[in-house]
Structure formats: C-alpha cells, structure tokens
C-alpha cells in the first residue's frame, strides 16, 4: 500500500477546496467574524503574532512528546511484566483498567494540586491518557505467537531471553506501532486538558484566553497548531515504523476497497 503522488495531490486539493468553500460562505452569509472567522483572517492572525504561537506550540509539543515517550516506556515495561508474571498481572491489570475507566478530565484538577501548575502536571496527563492502548496492544503482541513457533523454541531449547528477544519482542512490534499511532494522538489531548485546567503556557492556555476575550481567530490558530503538532508526532511514529520494520510491506495487509 504505497502512497502515490496522486494520493497526496488529492489530499492537498481537498483541504484547499474546504478552505475556499469556507471563505466563500462567509462572503455570502453575514456571519460576524467573532463567531466564525474567515481562513484568510486566521492566516493573517497567525502571521501577525507568530512568535507568540511558536512559543506556546513549543510548550505544548514538549509536554506531549515527553508524556508520549514516558507512556511508551511505561506501557512496554508494564506489558512485559504482565505477560511474564501471573502474580503481577493479577495485581496491576485490574487497577490499570479501572484507571483507564476514570475520565482523565476528572482527575486533571487533582493532578494539578499534586504536580503543580507547571509542565509536570501536563506531562503526567499526556502519559496517563496515552499509555493504556500501548499496554493492551503490547500484551497482545507478546502472547499472540503461533503454537508451532513456541514448539519450535522448545525443540531448539531456547532460553527465556532467546524466546523473548528473538520471537516475542519482534512479534509484538506491529502491535506496538499501531498502539503508538493511537497514543500519539491521545498525548495531544492529555497535554491540552492539563493546560485547560490550569497553567499559563501552551496552546490550550491560549484557547482559554481567546475564548474569554471572544477572539475566535486566535482560537482557530491555536486549534490548527494543535492538529499540526499531533500530525507531526503521528508522522514521526509512522516514519519510525517504516525504518524499524522493513519487512512490514511484505506482511499481508488488510484489503481495501477501490484502487
């Protein structure tokens, strides 16, 4: 499933078309710009105050990347101990599930009390919201091994380490990467929730200010900034996947309709 120039072209043209229609609708209908600003006005706002947006984007990016990386490390380690120790599995798996069920928005205020109004609380929220899919997928990847392959390991008298590094870990890579893609988009949400609840930095903080002052174009610049940040992190994960799993394009891929 390669991406052709036509595919990229289609995407870019459709984005431009959406923006054009948006702009045109605002020409036709008299909607005040403080309710819905035109794309041109949003663009102008971004250009006019780009140092402000650049700074706050950097803060949010820093929080989400750190939260994401910690989530990946914690998630993978938890998955390994869950798979290898029945005792630890019984001890922590139910608690992880309970933690996942509690809405993160609801514990955000508590985290702020515990970790302060600085970036630590935001990093923790990004971590909390994005580690669950990594644990679950990694556990699946580590145990979804063909029975014959495990028999082969027994016949070859493979030790635990050999079985882990030569069979289980590489087998889990596709599962890990699909969960990392999900987690990368969740990390943005975690960081923004943290900024919403309290703090004085980041794109989430800008959105709160913009809303209280009815500066919707500022809101929109921040929103586009957020999706761009999420997109960049997602792209890095996809790139890492291609580099680390060169065999992936030869694995049977799910069929898609059309050509």
């Amino acid at each position: 499933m390669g991406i052709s120039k036509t595919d990229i072209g289609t995407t870019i043209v459709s984005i431009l078309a959406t923006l054009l229609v948006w702009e045109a609708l605002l020409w036709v209908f008299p909607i005040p710009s403080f309710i819905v600003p035109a794309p041109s006005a949003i663009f102008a706002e971004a250009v006019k105050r780009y140092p402000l947006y650049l700074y706050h984007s950097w803060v949010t990016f820093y929080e989400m990347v750190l939260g994401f990386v910690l989530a990946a490390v914690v998630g993978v380690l938890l998955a390994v101990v869950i798979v290898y120790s029945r005792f630890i599995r019984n001890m922590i798996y139910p608690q992880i599930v309970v933690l996942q069920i509690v809405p993160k928005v609801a514990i955000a205020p508590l985290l702020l009390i515990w970790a302060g109004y600085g970036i630590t609380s935001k990093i923790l929220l990004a971590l909390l919201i994005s580690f669950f899919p990594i644990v679950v997928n990694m556990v699946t990847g580590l145990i979804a091994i063909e029975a014959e392959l495990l028999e082969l390991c027994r016949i070859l008298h493979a030790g635990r380490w050999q079985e882990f590094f030569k069979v289980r870990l590489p087998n889990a890579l596709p599962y890990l990467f699909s969960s990392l893609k999900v987690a990368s988009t969740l990390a943005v949400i975690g960081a923004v929730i943290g900024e919403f609840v309290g703090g004085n930095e980041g794109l989430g903080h800008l959105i709160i200010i913009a809303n209280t002052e009815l500066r919707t174009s500022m809101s929109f610049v921040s929103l586009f900034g957020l999706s761009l940040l999420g997109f960049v992190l997602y792209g890095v994960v996809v790139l890492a996947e291609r580099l680390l799993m060169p065999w992936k394009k030869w694995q049977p891929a799910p069929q898609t309709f059309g050509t």
Partner: protein
Amino acid sequence: METATSREEGPVIEVRNLSKIYGSQDGPVEALSDLSFTIADQEFVTIVGHSGCGKSTLLKIIAGLLPPSSGAVTVRGRAVSAPLKDVGMVFQRPVLLDWRTILANVMLPVEMLRLPRREGAQRALDLLQLAGLSDFRHHYPGQLSGGMQQRAAICRALVHDPSLLLMDEPFGALDLMTREEMNLELLKIWSERRKTTLLVTHSISEAVFLADRVIVMTPRPGMVADIVPVMLPRPRQPETKLDAGFRELVQVIGRKIGVLYI
C-alpha cells in the same frame, strides 16, 4: 558427500505400547492406543490416517513435546522425556519469522543452539542451494510463495544437522501441483542428507511415494492397523506413480483405512 555415512544397526526410534489419553469436558478421550513400531537409521517412514487419528500427537510425543499417558518412546536406546535436541521439525505451516530474511530464518536454530556461526552459515547456504532458494536468501518470507516458504522451513529443520527429521503434514496446506513438486524436492534433499525421517500425511499416494515403509493408522483411537513396506525402486520419479506396484499399494492401504480407489 554425506551419503557415504554408514548406517547404524538396530532401530533408532522405538515406540512401545504407547497410549495417550486427553482429559476433556466430556471425560477422558483416548487419542492413541497401544502403538508399537520401530524405525531404522536413515529410513523414511510415513504415517497415514484420517484427520484426527492422533498422527500429530504421536509425532509430538516422539519429539518429546508431549508426555505419553503410558508406554514409552526411546531414541537410540534413551527414553524420551524432554524435547529432543537432535531433531528437526517441520510443521503444516512454514511458521517462518516474518521479520527475518530467509537466510536469517534458516540460521535460527544455529543461534538458539549456540552452534559455531561460520559453519552454520555455510550449511545454511548449502541447504538453500539444494532447495533452489539461493537467489531468495535475502528476501523476507512475505515475498515468497507458500511452497518456497515451506522449502525454507525444511532447510531450517536441517541446518543444525539433526539425525532425525519429523514432519507434520508438511505439504497439507499447499495446492496439489506444488505438493507434487515438493515431494520430489524433499526426496532430493533426503537422498543427499539421509536423515531418519518420519512424515505424517493424510494423502495415501504421498505416503507411498515417499516412504520405505508406511504405518497405517486407524481412526480414533489411533492404533497401528498395518505397517506396509514399499519396495519401489529409488530414486522415485513422477512416473513411479504410473507403476502398477505403486497403484496396488495405494489401493491396499486405502482399503485398510476404508477409502476405495477405483
């Protein structure tokens, strides 16, 4: 050439009064009942029977992957109680590692058994050459057809030079044309490497075509119905199947299992 190695006297594998009973929800199920047979050094023996007659279970017990309920298996006079080291195993599916190239897949036993790398690599390359896979050694399994993948799996089973080759319906998942090619391919490899080979199949003609002797098994519980020697000359060719002797053996075995061939 390894063909020159002399044959050992006496049986290599001895199966004595072997039974296997599985516990299930509806009470114990007898999978294998009182099996006894022997296999000589460098002999090619096939086991044929209906699906579910316990053929695979038997192979796993011989490999030391499953304990028998009663009876015993001895290999070279020693009772089997743990997975054998001196054995190569081929399954119905190739079970190659997707993330390793074909050569790296064949090298897996060398790594796991911590054998000398250089000699292991040389044996791997020789085997791939023999199996006609030299040009594909740097490909990933996903790039190869099912038949080629299974040939690679056979190379993997032989790379640590085991004296015993166990194959569990190795060609069962392949189409008929590929299957016939693979039979010839396997015989070619076997005539060069002369491993004691035990192959499980549900195809009677495959069983006869490959074997020195065919062990015919009854449906559940699996028992030895008969052991049929195959006196057809080697090397076997595709034309062997047109031979009157071949067709008669297929009929005889078919009647024992309850399949009629006209």
